[in-house]
């Protein structure tokens, strides 16, 4: 009886730990995007540096509390790939983080959300589709821009 209880409790702990370890590790080991001011237009600068063409650009404001506006870019490359990027700046870390939570809470069915998000300081950059050679090229520059602005703050 005692042995059962010991084993039983051990297995309950095992079960809980088997969930919390991978989920906790993945979340805690990931780099948290700090909130700080990034100047200029990160997407335009990244596109210019990588030789990607900005086919069109227009102002856009998301209907979210704390959003202060941004732009919608259509980017193209010489291989005929196209990517739509929307940027949006937020007036506080809480407002930006709420937008990230909102995105993550909208998966299609039981799958993943459509597109992908890159956080650049006070900006959220939303890309569709999530898999694109253009995004692959400009993401390192966006992240570098965010990093360097974070160090300089």
């Amino acid at each position, binding site marked *: 009886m005692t042995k*059962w209880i010991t084993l*039983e*409790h051990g*297995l*309950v702990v*095992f*079960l809980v730990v*088997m*969930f*919390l370890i*991978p*989920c*906790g590790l*993945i*979340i*805690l080991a*990931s*780099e*948290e*995007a700090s909130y700080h001011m990034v100047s200029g237009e990160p997407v335009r600068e990244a596109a210019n540096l990588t030789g990607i063409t900005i086919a069109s650009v227009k102002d856009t404001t*998301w*209907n*979210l*509390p*704390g959003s202060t506006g941004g732009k919608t870019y259509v980017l193209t490359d010489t291989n005929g790939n196209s990517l739509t990027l929307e940027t*949006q700046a937020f007036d506080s870390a*809480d407002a*930006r*983080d*709420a*937008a*990230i*939570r*909102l*995105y*993550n*809470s*909208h*998966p*299609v*069915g*039981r*799958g*993943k*959300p*459509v*597109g*992908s*998000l*890159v*956080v650049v300081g006070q900006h959220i950059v*939303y*890309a569709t*589709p999530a*898999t694109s050679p253009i*995004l*692959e090229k400009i*993401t*390192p520059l966006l*992240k570098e821009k965010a990093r360097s602005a974070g160090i300089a703050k």
Partner: protein
Amino acid sequence: MTDEIISASPVSGKKVLGLFALAMINVAAVLSIRNFPSMAVYGWSCIGWYIIGAILFLIPISLAGAELATGWPQGGGVYAWVKQAFGEKGGFTALFCEWSNNLVWFPTVLSFIASTLAFALTPALANSPWYMFTVMMIAFWGTTAIAYFGEEVSTKFGNVGVILGSIIPAILIIILGVWWFGSGAAIVLPPLTLGAMVPAINFSTLPFFATIILLFAGMEMAGFHALETKNPQKDFPRAMALSAVIIVICTVLATLAIAVVIPADKLNLASGVMQAIQYFFAAAGMPWLVAPMAVLITLGGVVSLAAWLIGPAKGLGIVAEEGNMPPMFDRTNKYGAPVAVLVIQALIGSAISLLYVFLPSVNQAYWILSAMTVELLCIVYILVFASVIKLRYSQPDTPRPFRIPGGMPGIWIVGGLGLFGTAFAFIVGLMPPSYFATSGITYVGSVLLGTFILAVPPLVFLKCKKPGWLKNAGERR
């Protein structure tokens, strides 16, 4: 045979579920308003995407679920079905993958519930992590409390909730879309042609292709409630058909209604369903309907949460009752609810929700976690489709009041389409998005390792299995 199983099962409660209640369980699990704006962006081609989802998943899982539920109407749903084909290890693994998939998914639906409710109150509330966490916990533990009171209470809640929170909002959107169409207002979509309905399938849209296949995941949910079903052999196939029809009609028509009213560039996927709903009702001249819609859609989210929270937990209760988990897991209350499983899943889900709310900017982490949920769910369905095929060979004479038509070719076509769809979704689900800093191998390794860790506990439990774990062994309780 069935009666023997039922009477021997202390978990089974009163037989309260009929055709309508069963169908509503599936509708609650699958029909989600929050999918509509995401799909409406694709304009007429959303029809093509839905057809792909229906052919590669919805129709196969509905037919397979109907055959399996009528052939093996024991409790446990996918556990009972896969166990027949691949033994306890297979059945337990399938069920556990569905359960663990839930635990990683719960924070997303809880966050959706909290942010949608905030829209009805003060949208800026969603910026407060404390508001979010408080509402998420009230919704989570409140739904767990409803499950605590057993099948009768959760069925009543589910029936009312799914009508108010999922079907009525979808119908309202459809009616307004029809009214918009008939009023001569500007239609933002180009004229409908056959070509416009064909979705663009290429390397960039492959991940979305995989997502579409799991758009209708949850059609097997009614199977978990077999022991409380009045006439499973008769009611399951009809419930599958009824729920599939409701889900398809509501989903396709409501998506198109949104697509004809809201320009694609206003359907900002990074914001949410309520932003689209607000635009929709403002365009229709009924902005006062936004707050009531937010409340209804919140209720729809809670009902969806309840369907996924109760079904697999009941299945795990059956697994424990059969002696495959320690006795702690098969503790049931006087209402027949598996309280220990419900409490453990609420505790784990709460812990993951805590991280989700207070560490939102680790966006890459959530992508990996959502990729893991996709992989876990694919494992469940691969096992279910493989089971329906295998059982035609291993147990050909077991009475199946509903059989997939067409004999062996029919079962191979239906099961094969489902297997293809889910195996494809599994493989494509491993594709990293382009913004990932880590190499592709690291990403794939992380997702597979995480999936493995979340899928492997059944093997440990079976390894440690003791004869005394069997319910009523030695009159332990």
